[in-house]
Each structure stands twice: as C-alpha cells, then as structure tokens.
C-alpha cells in the first residue's frame, strides 16, 4: 500500500494573550491510499486543527511549532503561495461541518463551480466548466437547473450535497471531511453518508473523516485514530477497536454510544471535562479522568507504540 499522507511530529499551538494553547502535540500519522481513516475525539481534542494544518490553512494566532506533513513526499508545511494553492482543491479537497455557512451567500452555485474550475485549470473555459458542474450536480443528485440558485435557496442537506459536488469537481486524491454530517438531521445524515461512500468508490478516493460521532466512524472507516488533548491515543482497524478498545478513553467513548439492541447495558459517560489546552496535566493528559490511573501516569507521558497485536496505543497499561 502506498502512503499518501504522512504526518511527522506535528505540534500546533494557538498563541493568545492568555498564554499558549497546545492544540496538537507531537502527532505522527500515516494515511494509506484508498483507505477511509476516521479521526474521533471530543470537541477541543485538536481534530479540526489537524484538518486545517493538513490544508495549510492555519491562521494566526495558530502556528505550527514543529513537524512536517508530507503529501506524496512533498512537505505541505514548507509550501508557499501558488504551490500550496494548486494543491488545495486539486489534490486535497475538504468538506466542512456547516453547509449553511460554507457557501458564499452572495454568489450563485454556478459561479462557485466556474471560478473553482477555471482558477485551477487554465485550459478550461467557462462553458466547459459549466459542463463539469452539471455533471457533478447530477452525481450528487441535484437537478442542474439549480445551478442558478443562491445558497440560501437550498436546504442544509442539499447544500452539503453541493459542497460535496464542489469538493469532487476537480477529481482530487484526498478528501478531508470535517464533521460533514454534524449539522444535519439524522435522515439526511444517512443519505449523505451513503452518498460519500458511493462517491468514494466511484472516484477511488482516500478519505479522512473527522467526527465526534463513534457511530459514523463505525459505519464508514477502515481505520480509526482516537484523539485526546492534541495527541493520538489509539489507532487501529475499526472492527478491532470496537470489539476490543484498549485505551481507557476509547473505552469510555464506546461505552457512551447508546445501543438500540442492548438496552440492558449501562450507559456510561466519561467523568470530568477535557483539560484546558493552556494548562495540560503532566504525564498522561487523560490521567485526571482515568479510572485506572496509577503513579506513573501522573509523571510520564506514554508514547503511541505499536503493541504485539499490531495495534497502536498510548497507555501505560499495555
């Protein structure tokens, strides 16, 4: 298998007047071509920051402290200007959380397509760009007449379809979907997930799916990375993770999923709150909330290590 994206020792901090908030801490991760990688975690665990870092879209006060992100062997973080612009959209596309606010309210949908396509492909004129737009709209199941509408004339689910159509218009290799269904109601969510699944196969994409919803990950992902407090605490195949979660945090996450078919199971939530990123606990950052914490956890930060069964866990228990 070919590694399409490789993150090495990435640290990202937000520099505010109140101090440095360490959103991502020394994170490393490989994404294989063609897979669907789920990244899960509570809000504030650094998932979205990671997505923006991959796109090279971090804005002040956020800044990359150390590390690199290689896309097909090229370091995204050292790219400048046109180079990174051509990468975005063309190679890596992103689908955002809130379709309601992710489209320019003063532009028609067709204009979104046309400028997107023509700015990336110089030999394509408006006419051809429109043809692509029609095709994409059809493939996400929207009639092409609606290209002439403004974003506010669409419903949430329809807008997310438009966003997906836009993201796929230039046939990128890697799709970053940041909570693509969080803002949608359950019925629509299922439709959209179905659509993403279908298109992923159709376009042979690599997909990074960022979500806090364990159910969505279970449905979609090949592998799952669990993030806590700016680090990956567990990484393994989806099935294994669900069957046998190792890290206490992962356990907590899975136990908090309500299951229709097993009402007898007690629904457990993880006690406490995620820590303040400006003031991360020493040792294992999860130790204040961990039911199994012992002395070492308070002093030594566990590394993400490959265990004998081929799974990666960052926990002193193993």
């Amino acid at each position, binding site marked *: 298998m070919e590694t399409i994206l490789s993150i090495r020792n990435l640290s990202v901090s937000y520099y505010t007047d109140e101090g440095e908030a360490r959103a991502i801490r020394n994170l490393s991760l490989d994404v294989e071509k063609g897979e669907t990688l789920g990244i899960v975690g509570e809000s504030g665990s650094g998932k979205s920051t990671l997505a923006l870092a991959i796109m090279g879209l971090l804005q002040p006060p956020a800044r990359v402290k150390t590390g690199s992100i290689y896309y097909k062997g090229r370091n995204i973080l050292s790219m400048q200007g046109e180079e990174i*612009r051509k*990468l975005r959209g063309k190679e890596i*596309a992103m689908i955002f959380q809130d379709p309601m606010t992710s489209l*320019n*309210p*003063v532009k028609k949908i067709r204009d979104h397509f046309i400028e997107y396509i023509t700015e990336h492909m110089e030999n394509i004129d408006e006419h051809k760009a429109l043809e692509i737009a029609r095709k994409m709209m059809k493939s996400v199941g929207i009639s092409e007449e609606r290209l002439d509408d403004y974003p*506010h004339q669409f419903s949430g689910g329809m807008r997310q379809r438009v966003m997906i159509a836009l993201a796929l218009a230039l046939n990128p290799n890697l799709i970053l979907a940041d909570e693509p269904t969080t803002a949608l109601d359950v019925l629509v969510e299922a439709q959209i997930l179905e659509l993403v699944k279908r298109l992923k196969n159709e376009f042979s994409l690599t997909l990074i799916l960022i979500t806090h919803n364990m159910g969505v990950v279970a449905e979609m992902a090949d592998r799952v990375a669990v993030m806590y407090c700016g680090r990956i605490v567990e990484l393994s195949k989806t099935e294994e993770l669900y069957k046998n979660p190792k890290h206490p945090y992962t356990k907590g996450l899975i136990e908090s999923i309500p299951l229709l078919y097993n009402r007898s199971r007690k629904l457990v939530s993880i006690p406490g709150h995620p820590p303040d990123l400006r003031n991360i606990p020493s040792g294992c950052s999860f130790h204040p909330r961990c039911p199994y914490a012992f002395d070492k956890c308070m002093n030594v930060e566990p590394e993400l290590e490959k265990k004998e069964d081929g799974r990666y866990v960052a926990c002193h228990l193993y």
Partner: protein
Amino acid sequence: MGLREYILTRVILTIPMVFILLSIVFFVMRILPGNPVLLRFEKNADPQLIASYTHKLGLDKPLYIQYIDYINDLFHGNLGLSMSGDFSPVAPEIMSRFPATLELAIYSTLVAILLGIGLGVLGVAKRGKVDSAIKLYGIISYATPVFFVGMVLQIVFGVFLHVLPVYGRYDGTPPSGITVAGIHIQTGLYTLDSLLSGNFQAFLNSASHIVLPSIALGVVISGVFVRITRANMLETIRADFVIAARARGLKERTVLLGYALKNAILPVVTVIGLQFAILVSGAVLTETEFSIQGLGLYLVDRVYFRDYTAVQGTVVFLAIIITTVSLLIDIMYAYLDPRVRL
C-alpha cells in the same frame, strides 16, 4: 418581513422623524426672547417699519399659529423670507446653493469610499505592520480636524506646487448645461453640467477646483470607512465560506475580493448613511476653507448677519435631506442583499 413591507415600514417611520426634527428646530429658534426683526434694524429702529416687518414675517401671531403656518409653509416648499437685505424668499437661495454642497458631498464620499475600502482591504490582505499602520490611519484620520487637512493641502498643492486652484468652484462663468428637446438641463453640479454641454475645458476647470476640497473632506471621512471595512473584512475572512474557498485553492485575490469583500461591503453601505452627518458638518468647514458658496457657507454667513429665517430654513432643509438620504440608503441596502432580494 419581505422587502416591500420593510420599505413601507421604513418610509412610514421616516415621516414622524422628519416632523419631530422640524418641530425641534422651530422651538429652539423661537425660545429666543424678543423680536428677531429688532436684531436686524439695530440702528434706525423705526417702530412702524419694525411693526410692518414683524407682521410680514408673521411674528405677531400666537406661537401655535406660527407653528401651524411654519409646517404649512414647509409643505408648500416655503422656507420664509430672508431677514437680510430685501426680505427675499429663502428657499430659492438654498436651492441655488445646494448643488455646490451636493457636488462636494458626492466627490468626497467617493474619495472616502475608495480610500477607505482600498486601505481596509489592503490591511486585511497584508496583515502585520501594514495593517497596524492602516488601522492607525483609520483612527488618526477620524481624529483630525478637516480644516487642518485642508490647510496642508492648500499650502502644498496651491502655493508650492501651483498645480491646483485653492478656492472656489469655477474660474469664469459656470457651465450652463444643455438644452435637449426644448428642455434646459442644468444641474448646478459644474462637473456634470460641463460634461452635458460637451465642454471638456469647462470640465477640467470645475474638476480641478473640486479636487482639494473633496480630498480634504474625503480623507477625514475615510477613517470611518477604513475601520468599518477592516472590521467587516476581518469578520467575513474568518467565515466558514472564506475558509472553504481557501480550501478549494482559490486565488487569494478571489478570496479577498469575491468572498470577503463582497460580503463585507454590504454593511459599509449603511455606514455611508451614518457618516452623512459627519459629511455635512465637514462640508460647512470645507466650504468655509475653500470659499465654496454652498449651503454650509450660507449657513455660517447668515448666522453672522443674524438672519434668523435663513438659518432656520437651512437647518430644516438639511434635516429633510439627511433623513431622506438615510431612508434611501436603507432601501438600497435592502435591495443589494440577495438574501433579502426575493
């Protein structure tokens, strides 16, 4: 609320607002003890003459009758008789002065918009030191007296460089406009009139006169535009759709102008209405400084002659203009926003 209801409500609300403003002007002017006619004839105060003029101006009637007359006159476009010279009607004087002020207002707003939006966008695009400097420009230009800017411009461009006229609106007889199909069109805006009559020389003449005053006033007003453009740009530049646009790899130009600015510009339109008050105040000072015979200078002159009706008339006229402009801008805003436009 649909666009139509919105406009209707806005129009209906404007009527009592104008009415309140007019009443305030009337009562502030009448609290003055004594007879304003006396002020005019300080020297040769012939009682008969004073009585006749007092009657002519209707000042011998009870206050409430005067008020009714005043409102009634206003509806008929009558702003009373000037108390200086020959007691000529005030309204035609104001109308003859208005184009000068209007022309200054238009060009200085243009300067302010170009400068303000240009710098505001530049600051957001470059960030860092350029942005800090532009932000400071926004604050300083707002805090600068307009006539201070005017003085510097007059000295530099008029006296040292000898490139632009430093006073007035026109050298010689102003352009007379054009007659089309028997209808004579003369706007009183010299730059427009000269273009209408196709006289390019006259256009240069009038345009060169308006340059310095409109820059002086425009620079001062631009501070507000810089600040509001910057603030709106910074707000929209963090908006999801701008990040999404960047994530699509759109050119920075497209992102800034097509996404951020296009959305940030709408609220700026409403500011044009709000800064109109600053514009009018500034016009009084600019007209005085550049000897432009507009409404502002008229007001100042008439105060000097204690021409009570002319002062009242000018203030009333400005009140109506200001309320109308803010109404029009609100309506324009409603039309411009596609989210409302249905």
